[in-house]
């Protein structure tokens, strides 16, 4: 069987790529994609821990299901906000959307 830490390291790599996307991209939708990548990494971790440490109880899978639910709700609301902002300001570049700053 594949050792547990392989899964964890892959998930960590996925998480960090997502983190980089969130920190560096200009476009709000690209930032949201980064967040989705991070949530996926978390899910891989949860399922890997379930499989290797407590395969008798379904806790890990149930948690992953709730994470997916929240990811979907977050994407739905987030993208709705972007569309609404785009309609008002004509851009979703987060660097230009700083009217709230002053």
């Amino acid at each position, binding site marked *: *069987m594949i050792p547990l830490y392989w899964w964890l390291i892959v998930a960590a790599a996925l998480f960090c790529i997502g983190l980089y996307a969130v920190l560096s991209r200009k476009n709000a939708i690209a930032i949201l994609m980064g967040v989705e990548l991070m949530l996926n990494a978390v899910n891989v971790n949860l399922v890997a821990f379930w499989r290797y440490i407590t395969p008798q109880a379904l806790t890990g899978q149930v948690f992953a*299901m709730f994470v*997916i*639910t929240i990811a*979907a*709700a977050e*994407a*739905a609301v987030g*993208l*709705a906000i972007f*569309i609404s902002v785009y*309609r008002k300001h004509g851009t979703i570049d987060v660097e230009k959307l700083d009217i709230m700053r002053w």
Partner: protein
Amino acid sequence: MVLSEFTFVGILVIVASLLPIAGLGFASLVRPKKPNPVKQSTYECGIEAIGDAWVQFRAQYYIYALVFVIFDIEAVFLLPWAVAYNQLPLYALLEAVLFILILVLALAYVWRKGALRWS
């Protein structure tokens, strides 16, 4: 673990992806290839296309996708319930009905607000 029930699905993905490759590969041997600018221009009913393909589309399409996502997740929660229904006591009925009713309420709200209207 030794042979997951998904093994066949994996095999099918690989074999099925050979179909387009084989089809397009064979076709590229027999078909003619004489491109010219008129042929390769965008076809919009014969009129010359103005601008690129991007025009402002209605956000209404997005609303349908939104409602769809929410109901999709509901289904994911209800399917395990449906499979386990025979083993569950009576209160499972009430819990699930509550779950469904909240979503019916959401649908009713969106409907009343006119978000599902294609004006």
